[in-house]
């Protein structure tokens, strides 16, 4: 990039050597000055906590003042592998990720494909599909808690209607149904985000290429496989990485809907870590869990980008 920074002085200022040096210093400092406020907040509230997290995880750290915080080395980490509750939480988190991410992306891409071309009320449909994204998690969780209530919930009524007799499923009080409701609401709320990303990407697919493929007599599916999908690959990668990061730290919907119950069977890694920290005050153990998660998630992201990039080249 050409250096375009030409600080203009008011006409009256003397062109002395000192002021010239000052101007040069200012020119060099400008980008850093522009960055400084954002960097300050970032370092204080994001970067420092990342290091602090690792730091705490090596101590038996207490929040109460005046209590000794002995250094315990890796013992918080080795405890992770001996904790049976965390296995359930890890399994639930993994299951959540594997189920919700591909479904969200699939539906999002499908809906984007449906709504990318002109059609009656296109803008309206697009807005409708995006609305769940902007609705607050707390609100969404409560509507679904009501819909899936055991007494008088719509879900049970609809099932009763089809079954021909009254059905009372206590959705949120059982492991599998509780998990299923959590998946469902996460997919429902998440689809709009992938949708809008894919919509933007499909907008950028060169239409003449698509037309050319079609003129050559290629079937719709082949056009998609060989022209459209390769063109939106960067977006697919971006959406996948962001969704995996998001899914790995699923929290709010679980916290509100089931609080990890019954008996910790719908617990996820972060509801578990949160409980360890703020209910049992085992900050160090929670920090160890979060640190492991951070490393796993960053590793996963790099791996995904790497795999998808190498697929690009072939």
């Amino acid at each position, binding site marked *: 990039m050409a250096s375009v920074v030409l600080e203009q002085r008011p006409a009256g200022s003397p062109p002395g050597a000192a002021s010239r040096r000052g101007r040069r210093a200012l020119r060099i400092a400008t980008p850093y000055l522009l960055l400084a406020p954002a960097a300050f907040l970032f370092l204080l509230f994001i970067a420092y906590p990342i290091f602090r997290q690792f730091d705490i995880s090596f101590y038996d750290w207490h929040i109460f003042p005046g209590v000794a915080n002995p250094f315990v080395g890796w013992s918080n980490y080795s405890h992770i592998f001996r904790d049976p509750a965390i296995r359930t939480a890890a399994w639930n988190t993994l299951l959540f990720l594997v189920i919700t991410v591909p479904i969200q992306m699939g539906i999002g891409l499908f809906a984007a494909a449906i709504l990318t071309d002109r059609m009656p009320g296109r803008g309206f449909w697009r807005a409708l599909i995006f609305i*769940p994204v902007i609705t607050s998690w707390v609100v969404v969780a409560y509507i679904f808690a009501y819909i899936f209530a055991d007494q008088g919930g719509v879900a049970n009524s609809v099932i009763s209607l089809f079954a021909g007799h009254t059905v009372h499923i206590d959705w949120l009080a059982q492991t599998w149904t509780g998990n299923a409701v959590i998946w469902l609401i996460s997919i429902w709320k998440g689809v709009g985000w992938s949708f809008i990303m894919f919509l933007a990407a499909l907008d950028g697919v060169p239409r003449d290429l698509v037309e050319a493929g079609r003129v050559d007599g290629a079937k719709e599916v082949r056009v998609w496989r060989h022209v459209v999908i390769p063109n939106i690959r960067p977006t697919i990668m971006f959406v996948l990485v962001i969704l995996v990061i998001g899914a790995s730290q699923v929290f709010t919907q679980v916290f509100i809907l089931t609080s990890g119950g019954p008996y910790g069977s719908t617990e996820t890694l972060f509801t578990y870590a949160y409980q360890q920290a703020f209910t049992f005050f085992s900050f160090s153990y929670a920090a160890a869990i979060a640190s492991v998660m951070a490393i796993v998630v960053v590793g996963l992201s790099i791996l995904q980008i790497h795999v998808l990039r190498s697929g690009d080249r072939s």
Partner: protein
Amino acid sequence: MSLTFKDELRAPTTRRTRRERIRDSQPGLFGIRTWKKTRLITACIFGAISVFPLLYMISLSFQPTGDILTSHPVLVPTRPTVINYVQAWSENSFGRYFFNSMEVALGTVLITVVLASLAAFAFARYNFRFKEIIFYAFLAALAVPSVELIIPQYLLVLKLHLTDSLFGLILIYASENLPFSIFLLRGFFEAVPKELEESFRLDGARTLRVLTRLIAPLSIPALAVVAMFTFNFAWEEFVIALTLINSPTHRTLPIALNFFIGEHTTQWGPLFAASVIATIPSLVVFLISQRSFQRGVSLGGIR
């Protein structure tokens, strides 16, 4: 083909030529005519599924408690009432929580937009040492968001004496939103032609004026997207607020909503009324920024 034929029969001449113009200027991914009906029906289904729970919530908010708690769900209010709204607003100092949330959301948007614009301007328009490294350091933080850092952030806020303060929330929310905002804005700012900036500077404009008078006005779509995402993040954030805010007077809306759920009884009616009120600002912000929205996403650095 039969579909086209019918269309041509029905459509008046002027409309047909307009259609043809559109067809020529932007051939669709499916061809403009293929699957039109199927696509429309599918769109209806998607739209319906997306809004059903919300419409149902609105309907419930106008129902008396008796109807909400029956064993047979009432989809459309038969005995509409506004008692839930009156109750939601008058009890629990709901108005206060609403304005707390508004303060936090607007503060977060202001700080994020200003700081991210300045930083993105530096990344887009200047060369400096470690530029890309610093940029990727920001980006890497996308992999470690919200819930992940809650414990150390809590301890930090304790140390800074910012617990129970809305300002503390604003600072954390802004920090969490900076990486994505800078990422999006950088792509947009880079798209503003250099020649424009040079001529602007020759006219005597200083650095900040270039940003506020030239680059920002040309990047309204991206700024709208950043503002919308940031507003929504701050408006609905739950865990951090739950952890950092202790006193009832400083609660934000999501936390306040959570308190409608009692230990033994749930006040569904007021809860849904409050939920409807809580959703309105998000909707308004979305509708305002919606026009700019798609351009903002597609021109950002993602593609």
